[in-house]
């Protein structure tokens, strides 16, 4: 059993704010449909769901909105840019979906239970790689 202090020097660049403080103590997303490569886009016309009592947007929420303003961005990329763990990022994105500010586009499912990617996708990836 390792002692808890053994890895401390590795954590020197950890943020001083505990990540779950940003989420108001929530440690799990209310939704489980967000994946690492779910694409997030800002809704051009924010939804009308602005019910009173909804918590105000945190700076991190606004950072997500800024990141996704110009092109769709994957959840993992948002987590990397915000320097937050993926699960914390998913909670923030879930808030924005609930508030009607962003839209999530789920990835296609592949590689399981005999599901195969569409040939059109494979050809597009191949052609894109050839251009590298």
């Amino acid at each position, binding site marked *: 059993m390792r002692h808890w202090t053994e890895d401390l020097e590795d954590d020197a660049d950890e943020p001083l704010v505990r990540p779950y403080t940003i989420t108001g103590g929530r440690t799990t997303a209310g939704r489980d449909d967000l994946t690492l490569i779910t694409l997030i886009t800002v809704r051009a016309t924010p939804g009308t769901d602005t019910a009173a009592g909804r918590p105000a947007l945190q700076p991190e929420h606004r950072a997500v909105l800024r990141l996704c303003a110009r092109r769709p961005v994957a959840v993992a990329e948002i987590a990397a840019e915000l320097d937050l*763990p993926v699960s914390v990022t998913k909670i923030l994105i879930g808030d924005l979906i609930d508030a009607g500010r962003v839209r999530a586009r789920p*990835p296609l499912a*592949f590689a*399981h239970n005999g599901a*195969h990617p569409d*040939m059109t996708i*494979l050809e597009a990836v191949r052609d894109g790689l050839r251009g590298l």
Partner: protein
Amino acid sequence: MGFAGSDPAQTAQAVKILIAGGFGVGKTTLVGAVSEVAPLHTEEYLTRASVGVDDLVGIDAKTTTTVALDFGRITVSDELVVYLFGTPGQERFWFMWNDLVLGALGAVVLVDTRRLEVSFASIDFFESRGVPFVVAVNCFHNVRDRTPEEVRTALDLDPQVPLVMCDARERTDGRDVLLTLIEHLMARRSAPRPTV
């Protein structure tokens, strides 16, 4: 599936490819060689809730660990982005990270001929999960001390699984490894498959 016209925000697709293999075989190097951006870094807490109770037999139920993930991006078009995820070093944890594993197009298992054994677990994992993969032999500094046949035998690799030699630092080599995977996927797609 349309790639023509329309608003990318509505039609954009993201796909992912896993770059696996043991510790120190050059996964992040390969990701960085082909990615259009410097490899991005993120972390995830894997806890009982995120890995599933059944998978934790023999592991303390309170175990929470932080796994680090390096990944890159290749924008194929306005409407299609490929994300390359270098799998975290701690295999016993990322194997249980469903969000990482599920939905991948396929995987590249990178091997180092001096330490083939560190990549065995990844090969076993993809074989057992039915995730299509190719093996890329990272010839550090272009040292080719084993032939592809020797590596294939040492890995006890299914003859259907492509094996290529590469230098993970070279962009063109990384690209060719990924192309080998995509062509392998296309061949599987067009081959007649037994109906189960």
